[in-house]
């Protein structure tokens, strides 16, 4: 998969990696059982400190998305929700597209929109 890091972005670097794994799972680019790159390899290619990648992997493990095993590296957990049915995924993506249109029309910032989504999800 494609990994990107924007050092000028607002989000911390490790959080950018966490978000990409979640997105890849939601889009079906990653599936349970799949192995993520070794932290050292990812860190070298993205010119990051290895601890940044490890922190991202540990965060994802704490969320139950990854399993970290000595010798096997980081593997997407069976319960990670990558087995989202295509129809379900399409429905969510369509709803998000609608939200984005509405938010843009209302000139809401990305931060405000995601805050609204988070609030709605925690209700």
């Amino acid at each position, binding site marked *: 998969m494609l990994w990107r890091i*924007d050092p*000028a972005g607002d989000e911390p670097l490790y959080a950018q990696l966490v978000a990409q794994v979640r997105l890849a799972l939601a889009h079906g680019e990653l599936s349970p059982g799949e192995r993520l790159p070794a932290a050292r390899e990812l860190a070298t290619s*993205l010119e990051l400190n290895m601890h940044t990648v490890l922190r991202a992997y540990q965060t994802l493990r704490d969320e139950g998305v990854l399993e970290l095993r000595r010798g096997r590296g980081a593997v997407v957990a069976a319960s990670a929700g990558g087995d989202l049915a295509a129809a379900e995924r399409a429905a969510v993506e369509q709803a998000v597209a609608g939200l984005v249109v509405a938010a843009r029309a209302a000139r809401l910032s990305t931060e405000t929109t995601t805050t609204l989504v988070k609030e709605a999800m925690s209700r």
Partner: protein
Amino acid sequence: MTATPPTGAPRPDTRAEAWRPRARRAMAWPTAVGALLALGAALVAWSWSDELPGEVASHWSGAGAPDGFLSPGAFVLVFVLVAVGLLTLFLAIGTRAGSAASTRRLAAGGSVWSGGFLAASLLSTLAPQRGLTDVSQVMIPGWWTAAALLVPLLPAVAVALLVPGDPAAPATAPVDPGAPRAALRDGERAVWLRRTAGGPGLAVGAGAILVTSVLAVAFETWAMLAIPVLLAGLFVAMFAFTVRVDATGLTVRSALGWPGTHVPADEVLRASVTEVSPFADFGGWGWRVGRGGRVGVVLRRGEALLVERTEGRSLVVTVHDAATGAALLNTLADRAR
């Protein structure tokens, strides 16, 4: 008047032929070494002609008695002709398709191995027949055959390692503006990582390992078990690769660490998606050399990443989602200019 190409149009790489003298230099002495090994063995065999019977055993179908006989002169001639054929083949591969250092290394190693293998086979077949009058029951120990196959690998690998690698050849022209790009913000870093593994070649490998094992066991030539062991190592190395595109360029490396190759970002002329037909384009699966010296890491039919590189080189890797890798590589190659 000199015609100047319109700015922005892809210019032909003026150094597309720069590898040819390099390939001739790289192939000259390994071909000589292979020829000397084969010729030396032929001369030694010739010096034995007084001690050899009028007809020597020249062929065995199994572990039993020989079933083919030739005069010593004809036998040596057959070996010399096979040596000429193999050395010509490797020389042709090295000098006509050796645009990449990996190809020159393979061809140079192949020349030395074939010379060594033929020399060892010739001498190990004739040596036990010296001073005999009846060769109808003559036997060659199984481990001699195994040694004739395996021992020449050592000088072959040494010679392959002595062949110089490709010198740095940064592109002078910009990356093809018509090639796809990835949307990266300024200062944003990116890496594309994929694994590519398995494919039909693995089944061929499993079959070859099974057949050579069964033959070695059936004929009780235990030394020949070294062949399936070597094949197993070869197939493990050839059928699982990681593909990485990052700021340094493209890296393709076997899961074992070897073989592998790296295309620096500043040598990329154009990355794109192509369709590969393993047999039509590369004659099979694995680490291959195709038409025009194109190097292929070919594990299956279909979608592949094609990277055109300076000095007439190109590389193809069968990998899924090649479009993402190609777009990112073009973008990172832009940055490396």
